[in-house]
């Protein structure tokens, strides 16, 4: 926070035209979605309330600011030789917490947008779980995909 304040003050002194002068918005990827050990043909489910394996994004911004949260979710991960491993996300796989505590989330469907309000001190966290669905003949190797969280500042 001290560092952010310093940067803001420096920006103001240098004449950066911050016409809307309030706390800036920072969205940070904190923890990735971790599936752990899986077996071919056995789906692996991670709950958004899983403190070790769920994905987490932290948001810092103006107090009580409204933001619109939406995800771009991959349908599959791409592996060796173009092999695919399906991923799926269902209603309730995402959660939002003003207190940033994983145990006090309001669940939402990551496939739809969700309006969140930052806390009285301008904080919030987004948690996400999901399902990996390896096939019975899933090819070995490295699989990759990208999960995107879009934070739209309202208005």
């Amino acid at each position, binding site marked *: 926070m001290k560092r952010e304040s310093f940067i803001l003050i420096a920006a103001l002194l240098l004449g950066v035209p911050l016409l809307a*002068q309030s706390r800036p*918005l920072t969205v940070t990827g*904190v923890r990735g979605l971790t599936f752990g050990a899986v077996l071919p043909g056995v789906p692996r489910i991670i709950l958004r309330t899983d403190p070790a394996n769920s994905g987490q994004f932290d948001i810092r911004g103006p107090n009580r600011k409204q933001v619109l949260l939406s995800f771009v979710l991959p349908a599959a991960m791409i592996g060796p030789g173009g092999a695919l491993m399906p991923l799926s996300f269902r209603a309730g796989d995402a959660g939002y917490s003003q207190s940033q505590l994983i145990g006090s989330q309001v669940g939402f469907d990551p496939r739809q947008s969700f309006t969140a309000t930052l806390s009285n001190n301008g904080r919030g966290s987004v948690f996400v779980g999901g399902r990996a669905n390896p096939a019975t003949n899933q090819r070995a190797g*490295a699989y*990759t995909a990208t999960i995107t969280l879009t934070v739209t500042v309202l*208005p």
Partner: protein
Amino acid sequence: MRRVFAVAAILTLSGAALDAQGVMVAPHAVFIDHRLRGGSVLLYNPGTEPVEVTISTIFGYPVTDSTGAITLRTVDAPDSTLPSSLAWIQAFPRRLTVGPRERQTVRLLGRPPVGLADGEYWLRMVIAAQAGRVPISGVADTTAIQVGLTLEVRTIIGVNYRKGPVTTGLALSQLRAQIVGDSLITRARLERRGNAAFIGTIRQTLMDSAGRVLDSYQSPIGVYITMEPRLVNLISPSRLGRGRYWLRYEVVTEREDLDPTVVLKAPAVRDSVQVVVP
């Protein structure tokens, strides 16, 4: 069975050991005056790894769906009926790398067409930043499945370009409210007036039949065209006894998160509705 164990894997989507990564964006709303025709956004990387950032622009404005949830309506190719500045405001650079604990500035330059009418014109700036990547490594068994998921964050902020006299206002109608469990749920139709977005705050006050204030709530709101937002607030105390209550609903052009000089003034609008707890 052996094959099963051979293929069994550690599936890690970006890994628990992810270094926190992201980018700070300031300000979170940009207002450009036609006389200056430019603005800027500061990006700061508070992390320890460089962050690749891509800048783009879209046209969109908040609306509500049939349930009252707020969404961003985007239009790929806005026509002349929409107050879009997408065609003539440029952001640069479009790609940049922000080093650890470094800051960089993205500039916005307006080149409006000759004869542009007075009013407010909108676009949204999209700041896409890598938010973390876990290297796929560390599994000695080459028959294993390994998965690494790159996290990306897109921050979308509003850019409002104002030319000449700009005015705003609001018409409030169809106010309704109900108490469901421990929540007060309200909806109202908000229609913007004037030639600029109405940026303000909804203030709600719940009173008993004697006019005593039981609770009050505030929600920031931006009405670009028309919307009918559904607001849900927890009631304190959590349970109201049977009876009749009043909800006072007021929308004012006040915002604590914005510089008052960029918030257009307009008369407050208000209404009240009775709420019955059976």
